[in-house]
């Protein structure tokens, strides 16, 4: 926990302003109360690459874990503008579920804070500009887990 806080503090110094403060509070778990809606994470949602998105989400090194997370996506999407994505996990103490598409202009599609009592399950629909990997990122018990699956897109969803 100490190491994580220190890392966040370093990020806070680097980013400065409210974003950094948010990362610091996130690290301390103050946002877990669910009382206040966290400010929209502009840095993460504007990220153009996986690395940038993971950094902005405060992810250190996600563990590749296909057994802990079930990611359900179609193998082939005929319409890239509506691709169903389902993320399910039975990990204990799930805190956060994020969905990323590695070749989209903005890689982070959605991020959910999972309060206590809510199951580790999210189904939604994303846009995909081209054939790419859909990545599910799950934070549970302070650790990050990820799983990726490729979706072949036959017609793009951006600008058609």
């Amino acid at each position: 926990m100490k190491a994580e806080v220190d890392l966040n503090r370093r990020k806070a110094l680097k980013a400065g302003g409210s974003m950094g403060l948010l990362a610091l509070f996130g690290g301390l778990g103050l946002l877990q109360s669910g009382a206040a809606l966290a400010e929209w994470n502009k840095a993460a949602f504007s990220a153009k690459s996986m690395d940038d998105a993971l950094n902005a989400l405060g992810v250190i090194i996600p563990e590749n874990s296909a057994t802990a997370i079930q990611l359900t996506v179609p193998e082939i999407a005929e319409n890239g503008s509506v691709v169903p994505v389902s993320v399910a996990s039975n990990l204990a103490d799930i805190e956060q579920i994020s969905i990323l598409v590695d070749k989209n202009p903005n890689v982070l599609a959605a991020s959910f804070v999972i309060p206590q009592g809510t199951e580790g399950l999210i189904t939604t629909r994303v846009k995909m500009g081209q054939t790419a990997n859909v990545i599910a990122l799950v934070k549970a018990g302070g650790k990050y887990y990820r799983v990726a699956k490729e979706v072949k897109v036959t017609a793009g969803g951006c600008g058609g």
Partner: protein
Amino acid sequence: MGNPMKIRATAKDGVTEVKILMQHEMETGLRKEADGTLVPAWFITEVKAQYQGRTVLDGQFGQSISKNPYLLFRFKGGAVGEKIAVSWVDNKGDSRTDEATIAA
């Protein structure tokens, strides 16, 4: 003030399943009109679901979420006849809150 959401909530074996269909253009800000002008970004940024004042889901969206966003999640508890409230905020500051009664 956006268009109303469609919300279905069903309770079974102590777990409530919530399905939400929001009505929103979800413009990425990257799409161009036929004349080449860029369509400005317009998308939902935050979604929150509450049951009896308790937050059961707190989500953030980016531009990659499809037009008319769909969301499914489940939470423990939730009694038939009680209400669940879902709200969203978009990047232009527009917002909407809708309620649904939990069915069996």
